């Protein structure tokens, strides 16, 4: 359902990757490997539709991303390097308003339940600024709890700053999403395995 055909990425006069092709079907995870600076983030941003695809084509259900446009965005969850949290709002406010911007309306109670489930109940009403890096990451990832209906999850280093328990829980959630017919495209430098059919892509 997600197919890349002969895509290239050039930053300045440096070629990050050339003529890259891959495909991911329903119910599969795609893990992108590569050294620092190999172009993993650039590739994820192209897949998410944030960076233009200068050469080649990425298609979602046979439709090029540019054509699919907003319909594609509504099928997508993107968690980037940055957490997209406002430092002066609480996790509760951040999640509720952030999700509403994405067109997902959830009640305050639902958000609180999820935060409690994630072990964040005690900080639910504190400014995000005062949370630890790992806690902030967990708030950012909690967005995915409300996005099971969105097929494609694109995650850039989702496990960074997480403790072992949180890594275990989130990788289990990824496996669950894949098992439900979703697609997860992610990068990580940590030694994490997702218990799901997985493809690997090596960026040289």
């Amino acid at each position: 359902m997600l197919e890349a055909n002969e895509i290239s990425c050039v930053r300045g006069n440096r070629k990050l990757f050339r003529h890259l092709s891959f495909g991911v079907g329903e119910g599969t995870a795609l893990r992108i490997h590569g050294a620092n600076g190999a172009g993993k983030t650039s590739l994820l941003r192209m897949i998410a539709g944030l960076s233009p695809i200068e050469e080649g084509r990425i298609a979602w259900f046979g439709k090029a991303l540019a054509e699919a446009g907003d319909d594609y965005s509504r099928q997508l969850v993107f968690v980037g390097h940055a957490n997209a949290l406002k430092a002066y709002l609480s996790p509760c406010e951040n999640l509720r308003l952030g999700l509403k911007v994405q067109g997902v309306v959830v009640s305050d109670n639902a958000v609180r339940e999820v935060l409690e489930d994630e072990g964040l109940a005690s900080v639910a009403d504190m400014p995000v600024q005062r949370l630890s890096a790992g806690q902030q990451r967990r708030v950012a990832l909690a967005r995915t709890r409300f996005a099971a209906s969105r097929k494609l999850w694109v995650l850039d280093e989702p496990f960074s700053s997480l403790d072992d328990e949180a890594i275990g829980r989130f990788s289990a959630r990824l496996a669950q999403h894949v098992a439900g017919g979703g697609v997860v495209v992610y990068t990580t430098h940590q030694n994490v395995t997702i218990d799901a059919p997985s493809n690997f892509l090596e960026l040289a």
Partner: protein
Amino acid sequence: MNAGLRQTVAAVTFRDLLLAFRLRTDVLTLVFFFVIVVSLFPLGVGADPTLLRALGPGVIWVAALLASMLALGRLFADDFADGTLEQLVLAGEPLPLLALAKVFAHWITTGLPLVLLSPLLGLEFGLDAAALWVLAASLAIGTPVLSLIGAIGAALTLGVRGGGALTALLVLPLYVPALIFGAGAVAAAGQGLQFGGHLSVLGAMLFAALALAPWAISAAIRIALE
């Protein structure tokens, strides 16, 4: 406007207003900056009433222009740094309208206070009642123009080192038409002349900015995020 878009626009506006409320000292700083800059002039040029009456409209308008430019730093830079801007682009709704929602929230917290305070400051310059009304009206029409044009500059300089000074260089020349007709309207009213024409031109600028600026802002945001 469908329900999804309405919700997204409401959420974007509400989030920015809530943030401005949490960071209300920033708003107050801006308001005091405006008040102080304006108040320095009567102290500096002396208390000659005719001179002050002639200077007033221009001084207040220039101070409003500087204050509104000073506030541009907050408009997109934080969202750009913390990743919120990426999520806005991926919201699956037209980005120009979301950008407009952000500019609207920005104007509420940085433009509207100037409009409301301006008649009070006009008194410092001995402007008469008619001129005070026209002053508030011209700023009510003019400050949204400043916010819209300024937002283009703020979006264009995202991620650029020393973006603040560059924004000023980009934006201040574009503020000139609004300044001429805004201050012109108040000066005309002060002299008992017709000011309707000035305000109409200012209104036309507002509609042009409303129609065009969101697309320019949205294009600039997409370039910044590439």
